[in-house]
């Protein structure tokens, strides 16, 4: 290790210590708090199975919210991504669209949820809207990046025929970027199910609503049922999307991703 590296590491450690002092992050308090965790865990072990049907139903509602949010969000994101791609538009088009998308992404979904609860009231609809916004910001970014990564050769060759912008999008941009889209949507859905699970914390529907309420009233055993259902569901969705990706997104000999028919 060079002296320069030592200095850098020293500075980083010093910064962590200073920041910890500033935010009251105290390892001793953490150690002292461990017995509390043990109590919570112990109570959680008193799982109340009769709440399972309610938990499953709440989870089903959560999945539906995530599903609507993902589909509607993607539908809005796709045209925006076409406008945000540098290789398809002039600066005057892509710059404002990218700025808008960046602004949308600065809000975590929970903040969108608070905003929509204020707008449309408590409940699942506010949660759906929050997921839509979050999905628009992210899918559009992922998608304009994959549009910009399209090989310029077919783009140039087809443009040189003098086709319209719409035709270029239909015959080059969509087919050449669509192989990434399926895996992006799966990833987004997966992620949205997790996000939707906590939106209930701010009253925007979903299974998180139950979890936060039981925790508020120290009913850890009931909360545990709902948390377990979330855990199992998320693992299951993860597993399914890996399966789907393996089945439909094969690697061609060229080492590039292509969507199987």
């Amino acid at each position, binding site marked *: 290790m060079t002296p320069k590296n030592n200095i850098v590491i020293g500075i980083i450690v010093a910064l962590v210590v200073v920041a910890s002092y500033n935010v009251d992050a105290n390892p001793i308090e953490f150690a002292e708090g461990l017995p509390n965790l043990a109590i919570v865990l112990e109570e959680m072990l008193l799982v109340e199975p009769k709440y399972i049907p309610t938990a499953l139903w709440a989870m089903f509602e959560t999945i539906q919210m995530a599903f609507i949010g993902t589909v509607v969000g993607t539908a809005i994101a796709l045209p925006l991504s076409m406008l945000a791609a540098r290789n398809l538009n002039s600066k005057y088009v892509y710059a404002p669209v990218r700025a808008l998308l960046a602004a949308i992404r600065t809000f975590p979904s929970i903040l969108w949820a608070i905003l929509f609860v204020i707008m449309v009231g408590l409940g699942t609809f506010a949660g759906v809207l929050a997921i839509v916004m979050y999905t628009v910001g992210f899918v559009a970014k992922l998608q304009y990046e994959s549009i910009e990564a399209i090989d310029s050769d*077919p783009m*140039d*060759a087809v443009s040189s*025929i*003098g086709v319209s912008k719409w035709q270029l999008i*239909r015959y080059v941009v969509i*087919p050449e970027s*669509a192989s990434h889209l399926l895996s992006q949507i799966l990833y987004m859905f997966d992620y949205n199910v997790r996000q939707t699970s906590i939106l209930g914390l701010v009253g925007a529907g979903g299974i998180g609503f139950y979890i936060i309420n039981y925790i508020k009233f120290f009913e850890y055993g009931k909360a545990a049922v709902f948390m377990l259902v979330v855990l199992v569901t998320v693992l299951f969705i993860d597993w399914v999307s890996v399966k789907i990706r393996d089945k439909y997104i094969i690697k061609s000999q*060229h080492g590039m991703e292509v969507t199987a028919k």
Partner: protein
Amino acid sequence: MKQIQMTQNPSFSLISTNKIIQMNNVWTSYDSKNFALEEINLSIDRGTNYAIVGQSGSGKSTLLKLMNGMMIPSSGTIKIDYVTPNMDNKKFKKMMHTIGYIPQSLGLVKNITVLENIMIGALPRLNKIQSMFKQFPENEIKEAKRIISLVGLTGKEERKAYMLSGGEKRRVAIARALMQKPTILLADEIVSELDHVTAREIMNLIAEAQKRMNLTAIMVHHDMQLALEYANRVAVIKEGHKILEIGVEGDTIVDFQTGDMNTDEIMEMYDDDSKK
């Protein structure tokens, strides 16, 4: 091997009424320092089978890109059918519909079928609905089928382009260009990487289409032998300069650019390029 014979043949005079491509003192560069092409003068008659040869990096691809408006010269004038090539020029944009351009990389869309790739050549003739929903009109499908059989791809229409061999990909790119009903065909080293037999099959294909459609074909080659075999004019590019332009009439090769070239020099060039 051809006999090379020096003559001052007046029939190769630069004055003609039917010039489809004209370049006048054209200079071009990618950066502000080096010129990729310098002082290029070209004049190509309608219906010519024109070849451009030269070593890699000599500026051949750049020359083609100037002809279809993908690049704008730093100075000098270019006229394609008396119109200045420029993608922002409405009149030229219309002409692009019938300029077939096959880049060195072919530019196929990998994830769509052979038929769809070929239909791209017909897109300027389709309306919005037809092209958005891939509702190709009967007559265009018929035309595509005809070209597909011409290039020998019958039965492979529904194959995705990424599944094709190198030779098949070239046939698709040629078919796409023919689908444009082109008046000019620009082809950039499309047979350079192929074996001897396949390369000639593809060259014959283009030569036939060229004769039948009175097409002006401008083909870049690495190999002088191939150029002499198929072209009626050959320009040799070296380090951004056109150093030689010869006419080929049967077995006779005529130098009409510089009267003072001698046979030895042409042979030297020939050897240089065929060795590369």
